[in-house]
């Protein structure tokens, strides 16, 4: 089914502080914008896939969003794989479309941890709270420390990832954080939980983003102006909490990418631009290794010298990613992948024909990979 399904439209809300906006209201706005971008009427939609909001659990939330959209879905619902959810739901929608289970799907995510509660990101890890073990950043810091000691990765290597994201975000008018930084700025950033400082950590943001998915054939019939073909997708998961994980420095990204690259028929050297989940700087570095852009442990030397910046060997997170565009967990990376394939990014990579996108959830518990191409 390589290339048989397309992303027909993309849409999003403003990113940042959106006081008074509910996730449901933001989902509707993002879907409305994605349908307008696809030039498809709402009446064509018969599947609604929704990422759960971290700011508050609502039972049967997929139905709540479908009602707000005025849609009676044939198939849909809410998935919980953290940030990996977006591409996972897109994959499921693509398979459902390929097998006649639905015709036109919307995949949408909205959350308001900035003005609502960010408790999901600061929670105690069960009884281990008694040791002071709290929060998502520390889980990633534990992995980063192991990587640094095992392979000689330095904090400056991690800085390369933040510098690239911030440079790209500065040129993106929709980005929440529009200030480029240098490696020196990065080194002076406020310590949070060693080895991480503030600039290693993503933003916390309100906002929504959505896509419209359908078959290539349906997109032709409906006159969709700029469909982007889905060449491949894959997923991978680990079941262990960080402390129980046999190896801290290898992730489910490897199996996810293997599945997606095989489906797409591409190799890392075919990839022109990548949108890699950057909740923390270390995530990008390890994803590059696990995807095969370099060997395990060589992520540091690979990113050194501006490789990830526009004009470098592999431009990454060209809209600014979670570190600069918005802290939204992942869908904005899919949107930027679509823009790169359309040639409409604020940081367009000249001649880019293949884009890989990674989504990831928990403390590297879940991973999903998307390969996009051109018509």
């Amino acid at each position, binding site marked *: 089914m390589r290339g048989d399904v397309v992303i027909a439209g993309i849409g999003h809300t403003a990113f940042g502080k959106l006081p008074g906006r509910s996730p449901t209201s933001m989902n509707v706005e993002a879907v409305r914008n994605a349908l307008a971008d696809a030039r498809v009427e709402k009446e064509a939609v018969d599947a609604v896939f929704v990422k759960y909001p971290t700011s508050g659990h609502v039972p049967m939330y997929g139905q709540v969003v479908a009602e707000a959209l005025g849609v009676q879905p044939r198939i849909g619902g809410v998935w919980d794989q953290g940030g990996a959810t977006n591409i996972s739901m897109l994959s499921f929608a693509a398979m459902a479309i390929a097998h006649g289970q639905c015709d036109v799907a919307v995949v949408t995510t909205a959350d308001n941890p900035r003005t609502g509660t960010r408790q999901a990101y*600061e929670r*105690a*890890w*069960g*009884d*281990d*709270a*008694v*040791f*002071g*073990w*709290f*929060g998502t950043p*520390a889980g990633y*810091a*534990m*992995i980063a*420390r*192991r990587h640094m*000691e*095992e392979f000689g990765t330095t904090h400056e290597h991690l800085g390369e990832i933040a510098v690239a994201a911030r440079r790209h975000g500065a040129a993106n008018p929709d980005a929440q954080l529009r200030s480029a930084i240098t490696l020196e700025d990065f080194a002076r950033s*406020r*310590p*949070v*939980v*060693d*080895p991480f400082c503030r600039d290693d950590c993503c933003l916390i943001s309100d906002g929504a983003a959505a896509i419209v998915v359908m078959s290539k054939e349906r997109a032709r019939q409906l006159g969709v102006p700029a469909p982007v073909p889905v060449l491949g997708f894959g997923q991978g998961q680990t079941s262990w909490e*960080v*402390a*129980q994980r046999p190896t*801290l420095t290898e992730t489910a990204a490897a199996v996810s990418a293997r599945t997606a690259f095989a489906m797409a028929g591409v190799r890392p050297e075919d990839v022109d631009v990548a949108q890699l989940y950057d909740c923390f700087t270390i995530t990008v570095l390890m994803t590059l290794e696990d995807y095969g852009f370099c060997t395990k442990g060589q992520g540091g030397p690979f990113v050194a010298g501006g490789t990830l910046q526009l004009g470098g060997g592999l431009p990454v997170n060209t809209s600014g990613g979670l570190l600069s565009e918005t802290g939204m967990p992942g869908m904005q990376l899919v949107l930027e992948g679509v823009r790169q394939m359309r040639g409409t990014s604020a940081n367009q990579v000249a001649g880019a024909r293949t884009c890989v996108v990674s989504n990831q959830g928990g403390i590297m518990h879940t991973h999903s990979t998307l390969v996009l191409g051109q018509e």
Partner: protein
Amino acid sequence: MLPRPEVTPLTEPYWSGLAAGELRFQRCHACGNAWLPARDQCPRCLSGSRTWEVASGGGRIISWVVYRQAVHEAFAERVPYNVAIVELDEGPRLITNVDAPEEDLAIELPVRLRIDEDDGVFLPRFTLAGRR
């Protein structure tokens, strides 16, 4: 006040063991697998037949972090403080604190169990077993 562990029938032997000066872990009768934290079934063979054993107290550092700012008010006066993953010589892993200057910490360093009473809770903490 430190956040209190939630003692359940499943975890009660763990916490009462610490109060008695022992760090206990679970071992499977069926396959010999050893683990923490407490579970009803062995995560390797799924047997429910298990027992508690006492750890020898030796282990090594898998990784660690240092909190520069507190996430919870109970730790506001304690920053900077470290949290480490330690693997016991018998195999189980746990979250803990290592009582050592942060410049002395490194992965794979051998550590030794020291049970501390802290704010009314008995906790399995570690010290460095040998100098670097």
